[in-house]
């Protein structure tokens, strides 16, 4: 068989399978001109009038290929729409080829302008050795408000199938009509068929009804998808479809995941090693410990202290060590080299557990940045993330030994609190991964503040963080040197405290995840309390000054989700200036967020009236409740506005008698 280049084969494939572009241009008629304003959303900059998307999987030569055909017709309504939609970029690269690009502009008066060659610019984005990443850029000529632009192209991806493809039904602008056509692979020897799930909308079951081999359906009037802060995972909200190839054994979800859990365990178990070196290391790390939990935690600490992630920039691995790194074939190699990939580290931890007589299991789940794991959707692609669970009595302890800055028993917030498949040779289970309680992710802040008569102040400050609050910060600073951290944090505090002078910055326990991450420093603030002619107004909530309300917007489209449950504890001692006394001080009010949390404050003065002690505690996310339906938004906003109001509580000082 003669050799042909992948590109040539791809082009031949397109020519043979799609002699003309599969979709003709839609007619240009009065309906285009009649649409003077957006139809679906009145403030849309543009709307997609028609979007045709085709997917075809092919087996040709000795390889798989997937062909995507796209056609879009977009009407532009605003100047911003002109800027955003008058160019289209179509990237291609190794094993991705783009062809059959055609485009045209339809002016408001109905005139059609077909694009010339010079309106489609091809450029190399990057060339690495012989690999080229290119883009074709379509510049539509004569675009103004009221113009329709349309384009179509084919994309061929070599040595791939469309398995685990996510097809969005919503874009950043509304869509009037979307037609999706899918032609699954049809080869006799393949036992996997194409399956699909639709999310947040209903679509008909995929069925090929004619000789074309395509299964098609049409959707109408799709709203745009717009992101908001504190939002549920995007793919939990967006309308989209997953297509994938899997053998359809007609199982129930329970049986499907059990079977999958057994397969996962089988493959996982084969990779574990319990040789002499592994047993010795395990014995040494767990010496004197008896319970499963203690042993597992000790082994976790041992792996963290002794095995480094070769690709993590925060791990302290040097470029030289990275260059010398040899691929680990087994966990024993990783143990010897003391360096490995994330997967290597997970396997060595599991091997140590097994060597210590524990029962480690690989777990599968989802990522809260993508979507929650819902077993009803029987697709392996819905559970892409992995961790290690270790049996402790009748429950499971979860570990992620390869991600940075996680204390024993802690997972990344993205993997907390969601259903998780624990693999097993006999009885895989779906359990809920644990979540840190608010008391385990604490921001504890102390300030000793001396206020001068003119409203300026000096303060000694200590900030302390645990759990996710600590981890977020550690991830930001772990690559920096100590001097850089001090410099950056000093600048950050200067901005935070309105241009104050910051000195004596110390940062402790950056590397020790089992101790609070702590910052201590001194402040000299030119303005803290507000001085008028007769009075001095003091905001005791020192750490909340200048912090805006959390939810400034009045309307909300999507449900609200916080990343994790948390707690804030502030203790402020205020030394009041001589010659002034408190004028009928009152304390801020406390309230609860129902069962989800509470806001508590205490304000006490010393007998001589020169000292005020203020304590503030905010707890949110009890019982793992960190997600709220969109209907709850007004209440949630009101609650956080109330926090803001109480944080801005002020006491008045006046001249002493």
């Amino acid at each position, binding site marked *: 068989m003669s050799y042909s280049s992948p590109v040539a084969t791809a082009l031949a494939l397109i020519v043979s399978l799609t002699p003309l572009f599969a979709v003709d241009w839609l007619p240009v008629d009065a309906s285009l001109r009649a649409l003077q304003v957006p139809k679906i959303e009145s403030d849309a900059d543009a709307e997609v009038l028609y979007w045709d998307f085709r997917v075809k999987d092919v087996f040709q030569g000795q390889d798989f290929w997937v062909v995507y055909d796209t056609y879009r017709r977009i009407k532009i309504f605003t100047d911003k729409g002109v800027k955003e939609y008058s160019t289209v970029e179509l990237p291609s690269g190794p094993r991705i080829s783009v062809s059959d690009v055609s485009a045209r502009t339809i002016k408001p008066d109905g005139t059609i302008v077909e694009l010339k060659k010079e309106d489609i610019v091809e*450029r190399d984005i990057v060339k*690495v050795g012989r690999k080229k990443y290119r883009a074709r850029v379509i510049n539509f000529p*004569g675009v103004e408000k009221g113009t329709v632009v349309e384009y179509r192209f084919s994309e061929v991806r070599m040595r791939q199938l469309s398995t685990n493809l996510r097809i969005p039904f919503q874009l950043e602008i509304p869509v009037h009509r979307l037609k999706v056509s899918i032609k699954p692979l049809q080869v006799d020897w393949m036992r996997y068929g194409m399956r699909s799930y639709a999310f947040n909308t209903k679509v008909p079951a995929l069925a090929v009804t004619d000789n074309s081999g395509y299964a098609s359906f049409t959707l109408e009037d799709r709203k745009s998808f717009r992101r908001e802060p504190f939002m549920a995972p995007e793919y939990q909200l967006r309308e989209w479809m997953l297509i994938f190839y899997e053998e359809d054994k007609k199982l129930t979800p329970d049986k499907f995941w059990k079977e999958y859990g057994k397969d996962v365990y089988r493959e996982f178990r084969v990779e574990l090693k319990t040789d002499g070196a592994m047993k010795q290391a395990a014995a040494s790390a767990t010496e004197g410990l008896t319970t499963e939990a203690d042993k597992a935690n000790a082994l976790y600490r041992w792996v963290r202290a002794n095995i480094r992630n070769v690709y993590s920039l925060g791990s302290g691995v040097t470029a030289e060590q990275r260059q010398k790194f040899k691929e680990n074939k087994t966990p024993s190699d990783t143990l010897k080299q003391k360096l490995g990939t994330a997967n290597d580290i997970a396997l060595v931890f599991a091997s140590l557990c097994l060597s210590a007589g524990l029962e480690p299991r690989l777990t599968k789940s989802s990522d809260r940045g993508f979507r929650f794991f819902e077993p009803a959707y029987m697709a392996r692609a819905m559970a892409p993330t992995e961790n290690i669970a270790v049996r402790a009595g009748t429950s499971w302890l979860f570990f992620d030994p390869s991600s940075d800055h996680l204390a024993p028993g802690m997972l990344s917030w993205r993997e907390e609190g969601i259903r998780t498949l624990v693999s097993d040779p006999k009885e895989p289970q779906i359990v809920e991964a644990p979540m840190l309680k608010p008391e385990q992710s604490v921001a504890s802040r102390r300030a000793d503040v001396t206020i001068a008569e003119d409203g300026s102040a000096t303060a000694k400050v200590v900030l302390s963080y645990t759990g996710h609050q600590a981890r977020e910060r550690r991830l930001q600073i772990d690559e920096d*040197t100590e001097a850089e951290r001090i410099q950056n944090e000093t600048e950050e505090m200067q901005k935070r405290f*309105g241009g104050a002078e910051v000195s004596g910055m110390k940062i402790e326990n950056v590397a020790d995840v089992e101790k609070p991450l702590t910052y201590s420093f001194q402040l000299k603030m030119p303005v803290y309390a507000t001085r008028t002619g007769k*009075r001095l*107004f003091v905001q005791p909530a020192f750490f909340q000054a200048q912090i805006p309300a959390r939810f400034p917007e009045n309307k909300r489209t999507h449900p609200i989700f916080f990343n994790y449950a948390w707690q804030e504890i502030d203790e402020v001692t205020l030394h009041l200036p001589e010659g002034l006394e408190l004028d009928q001080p009152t304390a801020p009010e406390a309230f609860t967020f129902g069962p989800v949390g509470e806001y508590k404050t205490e304000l006490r003065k010393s007998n001589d009236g020169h000292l005020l002690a203020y304590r503030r505690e905010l707890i949110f996310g009890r019982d793992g409740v960190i997600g709220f339906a969109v209907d709850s938004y007004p209440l949630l906003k009101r609650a956080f506005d109330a926090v803001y109001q109480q944080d801005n509580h002020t006491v008045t000082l006046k001249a002493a008698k």
Partner: protein
Amino acid sequence: MRRPWLVAFAFTYSLSGAADEAPGWLKELTSVAIPSQGPKVPAYVLWNEQAITVEPTGRKVIARRFAVKILNAEGRRYGQAVEGFLVGSSRVRDLRAWAISPSGQVKTYGKDAVIERGMVTDDFYSDVRVRQIFGAVDPGSTFGFESTVEDSSVFLQAAFGFHYGIPVHCSRFSVTLPPGWQLQATVLNQDKLEPTVEGATQTWEMRKLEFYDDEPASPGLGKYGVRIAVSFLPPEGTSAGRVVRDWVDVSRWMSELGDPAATPEPSVVAKATQLTSGLMNERERLQALATYAQSIRYVSIQRDLGRGGGYQPHPAKDVLAKSYGDCKDKSVLMRSMAQSLGFTTYGVSAFSGDRDAVRPQWASPYQFNHAIMAIRVADSTDAPSVMNVPKLGRLLFFDPTDPYTSFGNLPIYEQGSFVLIEAGDQGQLVQLPLAPPSANLVERTIALKVLPDGGMAADVTEKSQGYAASRERARLKQAATDQYRKGVERWVARSVPGSTITKMEPEDSATAFTLRLGVTASMYGKLMQNRLLVFRPTAVMRGGVSPFTEPKRTHPIVLNPDAFTELTTVSLPEGFTVDELPDAVTVKTAFGEFRSTYEAKDGTLLVRRSLEVKAATLPPESYREVKSFYDQVQGHEQAPVVLLKR
């Protein structure tokens, strides 16, 4: 049977088994003693050398050597070798790099490590490309590279910057000319720098250059860093490239390229006539053309740069037909339309982004990266961007690429910069006018009603002109409608938390941008002990925290012209009297003035504030005064009014 491929393989294998070796010049540099640097300094340049050899044909061979010591994690980004070239007129003949680890281990980067890519710019396509090697370096490593570039581009000029922003141990630039050639060298940002001469080679060198610590409102490196700019002058009668001796030379060349493209063709004439139909006033007619030129979409496709293609606009009729083009295309379209109505126009070369970048001492098209235009106007047409130019008359300067700056104004970063008017033999370099503060005025009127429980309702009208209007226009046009609204909500919520916007009406006209808002809030004032009502009469803050937070200053301070006036009429709640008002304030300095007055009468409080800042570049010694000025302005936004319940 002989197996020569097996022998070759073994030979190659034994070579690759040998240790990497860095060149002698780089190894020597690893022993340079680096003075102690603060944590802000990411890297230290050990060697920065460029040597240009000009061949008799005018082709330039440019050899570079560069070495840097990485000091911290942030410095890793300096561990790369980058060489740019222009497709069709230059090429990177050679690029090699080495990384020496703290332990002395050497890693060599050859052809396999080279990435080629387009330069990251706003262009959709550009002939400018780079070849790059990324070194895997850690703090303590030394990274160095050598390169050779052959350049046959049209101009016989070059420039070299000695400064790098980070500290430099040694920066060196040399030129070797063929016999009979002469060199014209200009030192920028320093009075003198004498070369050493050895045969046909002249060398300039600077050592121990300090770290440039960026501070807010500083001049750019263009004003600070020492540069040398050279022109190569071949013997008379030699056609080795384009010779540039003075600004008239540049003007002539640019006019040759640009003027023909501005010739009005019938389609352009028709368009200009249609746009100005019914308009008699000169300003209104030009405004109509300007609005259209600004609406043409910006698309930059840069080809043939090495032969001056980057300076040549497309014919105006083509720009009109396509409705897109780059800065010179939009300028040429505006010129052509204006010319078709009988106006005299000129192309103008400018630098966008740093008003101090263009130095009058060195005549070169290389100093410009942007095209605008100028129109001769009558005395009756007045605007901040009008100035009298000797021999050319009263010219109004306009930048059609900026969609947010209205006709008659210039983007703030172009004001005060040097530009070249392309007028053939009469072309000249001029300094564009800096608009006075009053041309950038923000006028705000607020009618505010305070309720007895601390709530409020307010109508806010804010009218912006000049640069201030450009900023507002950009906010409106760059955001989707709901995002713009959310931005306004966030802005108001900064000073009035928990507020609701009941009305939002932006209005954009040729000369001003007006925003009308209705605001209500329940948490505006604080009612304390049920007898004191405290509120801030500054209902809407404009700026954020003053940028001048550091106690000390190294660089000059650049202030842009700024002005605002505000009148707030506060209806006080029934049953309360005014117990305390902030003191009236006047802060007057050479560069700016801030005033604030309060007047309470018959249940109404009148608060007047005004700020005016002149354009100025102040020495670092003035920093304390500048900081104090802005601290006082900011402090006054927080000053409260105290009402007492009767």
